[in-house]
């Protein structure tokens, strides 16, 4: 892999991890609210 390949992969993975974490929090909040009586 070229230097640019490592850079793109690193930045994309970071974006996916942060986006995924944000969505997981939102999803867990929604799920928690749905289970409220």
């Amino acid at each position, binding site marked *: 892999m070229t230097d640019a390949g490592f850079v793109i992969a690193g930045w994309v993975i970071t974006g996916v*991890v942060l986006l995924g974490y944000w969505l997981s929090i939102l999803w867990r909040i929604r799920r928690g609210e749905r289970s409220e009586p």
Partner: protein
Amino acid sequence: MSEPVSMGEGLMSPVVRRVFGVLALFALAALVVVGLFVAPPDEVQGDAQRLMYIHVPAAWLAYLAFGVTAVSSALYLWPRTRSFVWDRVAGASAELGVIFTGLTLLLGSMWGRPVWGVWWAWDARLVTTAVLFFLYLGYLALRRVPAALDVRAKRCAIAAMIAFVDVPIVHFSVTWWRTLHQKATVFNPDLNAEIHGTMALALWIGVLAFTLLYVYLLDLRYRLEVIEEDREERELEAAIADRVQGGMASPETVGVGS
């Protein structure tokens, strides 16, 4: 779109949280532009240097997140300031710290392969950072161990303060030991930053973007902590009610036949 009631039980109002979210988004967009297109490639490392604009901010945010966890834990343990708010902040911040530490390790490894020629080295900075990652994974696991809220909060606060001892060890590892990892570029003993121009700009935008994102996510994660606590309490009460009902029906419990 209206937000449910529990979304309001955060550290800040939903409006302020949204402002932080929007600012974080703009700062992240600026980071992409400056870090990938404006800053020049490094004279020695070439384009691989561009990974530093997210690797270093991720590492600093891990320090910040674990620092907030440690301070919040201390405030929980101190009788005068004891409040479950601090326990929730500690838990929320620790989870964010684990995410940022994980990114730090991953990005460092992806930078190490083209620059050092290896994905991993048994280097003091790398090993102490990996230890930090696993210490706080253990802390998050401890928060999942079923217990009364006050018992859990106290044991987790103590664990968080013990785990934080590793943070200065990580930071000073490059000066205490001879390491493959480079010494501090910005927060070195002379406080003489060895990065300038658009490269420094990209780094500082990265720090700003990740800090704004941290504040936004901390508030969101705190709200989740409140919801999960409520659910745990309801489940505990339901379990106690079941046990009491079952006990009432059981001849042994009510003393029939003794």
